[in-house]
């Protein structure tokens, strides 16, 4: 039953998109996390998706998604001159993460849309399978 494999494929997409949502919320939550040096500052994270290729197996038509890894953004950290801050360094600077809130919001919307239509695909396949089970009745 190849309609059954829709559950595997869309399920892997749901898992990948929820990881993406999770990372987006971590980024937004830590957008204002202050630190006194570059090394300890939080950097925006992004998941890297890749197709779970099964090209040479018996099911070339079902390609799921997997999260290959999570990479940290290489964008420049924000520095702010604030000598009165308890975490400021010798020169009076504090370091803020390179999280771009607008980018993260757009990412969040994109992830939730993708999640929605994968759920829709699963629902449709479920209905079709149930209709097939009722065949001839």
């Amino acid at each position, binding site marked *: 039953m190849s309609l059954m494999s829709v559950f595997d*494929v869309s399920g892997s*997409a749901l898992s990948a998109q929820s990881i993406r949502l999770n990372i987006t919320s971590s980024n937004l939550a830590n957008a204002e996390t202050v630190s006194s040096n570059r090394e300890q500052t939080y950097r925006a994270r992004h998941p890297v998706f890749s197709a779970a290729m099964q090209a040479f197996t018996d099911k070339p038509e079902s390609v799921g998604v997997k999260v290959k890894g999570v990479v940290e953004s290489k964008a420049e950290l924000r520095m702010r001159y604030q000598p009165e801050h308890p975490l400021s360094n010798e020169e009076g600077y504090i370091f803020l993460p390179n999280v771009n809130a607008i980018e993260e919001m757009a990412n969040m919307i994109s992830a939730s849309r993708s999640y929605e239509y994968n759920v829709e695909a699963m629902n*449709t396949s479920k209905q079709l399978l149930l209709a097939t089970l009722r065949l001839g009745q």
Partner: protein
Amino acid sequence: MRFNLDKAMGIYETALYVRAKRGSILASNLANSDTPNFKARDIDFKSVLRNAAGVSSSSSMTATNAKHIIPGGNSAQTADLLYRHPHQPAIDGNTVDAQIEKTKFAENAMQYQTSLSFLTGKIKNLTSAIKGE
């Protein structure tokens, strides 16, 4: 008159099989709508159905030697999987257009149900013939 139950269902059985395969392909496209470098795929329903129904097309390869390797599966093989022509490919190399894939998925689901209702009709005809009502 000889009766063959395998043939009684007609093309609809094969059509249902190919439709289910296509549903899986379209779901894969939707699942990978955010995967970099993923290319949207689809099948040519007509030719795959013809192949699956046992009518060989001129483009299909035949094994003329015992050592020839025949690709696995009886339909929707790797060779049958085509790439969709993108209207507006993304900058990361992804060619999935979620709107197109969603429409095709809904269309495919509709046609699957159509095949199902044709099959139900066939089965109803057979049962009424058996019961002699």
